[in-house]
């Protein structure tokens, strides 16, 4: 078995920059990525043979995308790079990987988790109809396959991604029927001071909004989503507008998302300590300013630690690598630490502005009709969760899961966990932090039973 290396998980902005810093120090790290091509979600690359130019794929972020891809490609020969590989478990100082039918156990000297984020979803009646996608999935369809999710698309939810994806669809020539934002615009005014921490990004966001308006696309803020209608397929979206009037928008597809949630299961398996983050309204692994978790030699960077976006992820990835190098006894100039920490400061402030300007609408969970499905893997409705809480007194997530099966299916609560917590908290009449978080367990994603350790392992 190979001697332990520094292992970086995730080849997005944070992971690539972390790996690059380790290579600069003369190491040959292992870089493991679930995708076949590096770049992460935001700078996702097309499969081989697709030829849309970077400017069309990444818009204003094209230069950063090209630079990051170039860095990753230049780095590849100096790494033990393992694309298309799932890290499904962590045990006894080693990560457990799966690619196809092959399992491997890779011990690590240090572990840098750059696991990224996925969409935050608040269910509503009709959200499981064919034609409903997460915002992230709508964007992947466009970036990776040059496909739109429908011929008349409604984007609903909140957060900067809502406007970005809508704008990317407009630019790509798709018909966007409406942008429906649950956050009232006054929230953005209140958050303006924090958002001004990154003026260029703020200006970019305002340009997307202006572009959407110029294209004649209705943009409604402060809406309350009521339902997605259709028989066997999306036919329309019904919301209650700011004034409380019901509004129906015809559509054959919906892109749905309320900001991003950090993917934290690997940190949980590494036994990192978590705390409830009042800004993100999510349990997050605790880190110091440089990305050290509570577990020695386990580090976190990028949106998997806290959602601050791609620019911050590049900095945080490098910073976490610096911390790992220093902890392993390599010399890292103090100046590098202070420069990276300083560069991250406005990004943390901006992130607070975003979360306050586009808040997670947890309160909507209390209003969901009983028949709304929350956990789609196990087909558990809001009413079933409320019954479990009422009849069994389940006080927290893991008990509600054990007795009522919410979050027990293929996704292990990655999709439904935040909304289920809100439903439980509302049913109990307590703040959401009091219902805890689902405990993680390997495999964090489904593991084929055909998979086996290679002959030289075990």
């Amino acid at each position, binding site marked *: 078995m190979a001697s332990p290396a520094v292992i970086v998980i995730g080849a997005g902005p944070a992971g690539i920059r972390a790996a690059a810093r380790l290579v600069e120090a003369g190491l040959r790290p292992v870089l493991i990525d679930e995708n076949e091509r590096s770049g992460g979600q935001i700078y996702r690359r097309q499969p081989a043979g697709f030829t849309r130019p970077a400017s069309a794929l990444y818009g204003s972020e094209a230069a950063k995308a090209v630079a990051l891809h170039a860095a990753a490609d230049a780095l590849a020969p100096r790494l033990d790079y393992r694309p298309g590989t799932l890290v499904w478990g962590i045990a*006894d100082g080693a990560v457990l990987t799966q690619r196809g039918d092959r399992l491997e*156990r890779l011990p690590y000297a240090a572990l840098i988790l750059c696991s990224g984020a996925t969409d935050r979803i608040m269910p509503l009646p009709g959200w499981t109809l064919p034609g409903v996608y997460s915002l992230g999935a709508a964007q992947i369809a466009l970036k990776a396959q040059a496909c739109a999710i429908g011929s008349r698309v409604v984007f609903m939810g909140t957060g900067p991604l809502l406007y970005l994806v809508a704008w990317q669809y407009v630019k790509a020539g798709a018909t966007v029927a409406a942008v429906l934002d649950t956050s009232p615009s006054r929230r953005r005014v209140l958050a303006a001071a924090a958002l001004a921490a990154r003026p260029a990004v703020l200006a970019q966001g305002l340009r997307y909004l202006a572009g959407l308006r110029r294209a004649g696309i209705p943009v409604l803020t402060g809406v309350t989503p009521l339902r997605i209608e259709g028989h066997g397929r999306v036919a329309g979206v019904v919301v209650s507008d700011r004034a409380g009037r019901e509004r129906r928008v015809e559509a054959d597809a919906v892109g749905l998302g309320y900001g991003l949630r950090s993917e934290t299961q690997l940190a949980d398996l590494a036994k990192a300590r978590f705390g409830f983050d009042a800004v993100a309204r999510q349990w997050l692994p605790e880190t110091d300013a440089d990305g050290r978790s509570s577990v020695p030699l386990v580090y976190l960077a990028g949106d998997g630690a806290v959602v601050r976006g791609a620019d911050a992820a590049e900095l945080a990835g490098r910073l976490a690598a610096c911390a790992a190098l220093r902890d392993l006894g390599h010399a890292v100039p103090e100046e590098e630490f202070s420069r990276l920490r300083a560069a991250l400061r406005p990004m943390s402030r901006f992130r607070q502005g975003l979360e306050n300007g586009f808040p997670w609408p947890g309160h909507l969970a209390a209003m969901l009709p009983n028949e709304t499905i929350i956990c789609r893997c196990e087909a558990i409705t809001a009413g079933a969760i409320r019954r479990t809480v009422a009849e069994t007194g389940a006080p927290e997530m893991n008990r509600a899961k054990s007795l009522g099966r919410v979050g027990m299916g293929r996704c292990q609560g990655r999709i439904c966990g935040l909304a289920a917590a809100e439903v439980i908290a509302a049913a109990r009449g307590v703040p959401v932090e009091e219902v805890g978080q689902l405990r993680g*367990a*390997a495999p964090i994603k*489904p593991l084929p*039973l055909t*998979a086996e350790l290679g002959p030289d392992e075990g």
Partner: protein
Amino acid sequence: MKADVIIVGGGLMGSATAFFLRRRGLSVILLERDLVGQAATVASFGNIRRQGRFLPQLPLANLSRDLWGRVPELIGEDVEFLASGHLRVCFRDAEIGRMEQYARDCAPYGLKLELISRNALRDRFPYLSPEAVMASYSPLDGHANPRLAAPAFARAARREGAVVVEHAEVVGIARGAEDFVVETRAGTFRAPMVQVSAGAWGQRLSAALGEDVPLTPAGPQMGVTEPAPYRIPEVMGIHTDVTEEGVYLRQVQRGNIVFGGGRRDAASLDTKRATLNPLNTMAQMPHLRRLLPAMAQLRVIRTWSGVEGYLRDDIPVMGPSGVTPGLFYAFGFCGHGFQLGPGVGATMAELIATGRTSVPIEPFHIGRFAAASSTPPGPQRG
């Protein structure tokens, strides 16, 4: 607060005992450290299996099997019990003799097993491995849902009038002039009789009461696949002496296949958590595929463990104290207690209420560890 009986520990054993004591008219306080059914019960595989057990345990297991069949009428809740049959499967000719011997030996206890070999086995259970050389079929055994069982018995006990106190960790049990005084984090409770059914933590309590036992906590390594069409009613396990090969599985009606077996991993009485080591999951997979080849098409979606207590001789502590009148034990069921749960509850309630039991439980008496160390044969697995 005072009652006829205090039960320490709200797993399946304590919850079922509380229920049956109420049926006999005794007043009961059930004290649970955390929430009912969170430690060993919830980690159980859910096997309602009699075959393969230590033979003197069969009368108790038979009683329990009858009670499982009547659970909905007894407690008014369904815990997903299915008498769908149980198969022990062996892959080596050398094991055939032992399988035949067990089938002969258990018959006088009223357990009728059917031995099926090779071609007949494939005709009858076509989803079984073609390498299987023999299976022992117990048609009236089956499985139930361990996540639901203990809370359902505790709720039923409460409906029958038992006082169920959760978050009441016991910090001391003392024998007073008339009553036991049980100090907990939720107050002081008194009763002339006490049952310790605290699972892996039972040893700490029995030792404090002057009766130490050789108990080791450990965690079973459980997992479940994504759902597939419901095709396999029988619970099945591999009959083998090789620990790693000894996997078992059952398909629930929702379609998922629950599995366990092979090596166990560490469990901590202090953190109250048992380790699920994913390396054990990896080690289970080839044996699961061997037992049920179609399983290769599925994916594992979830794993878990829980804190179980194992006695040195692999059979539980059950019965009256050897030294203190009014004190009773039912703990340390060594990973095979789930099937016994209702039977243990009924039998302990009978013992506490009448001083006698209709099924023999002498082999499980705690006094066996006080006498010169002798090791009776433990149960076979699978």
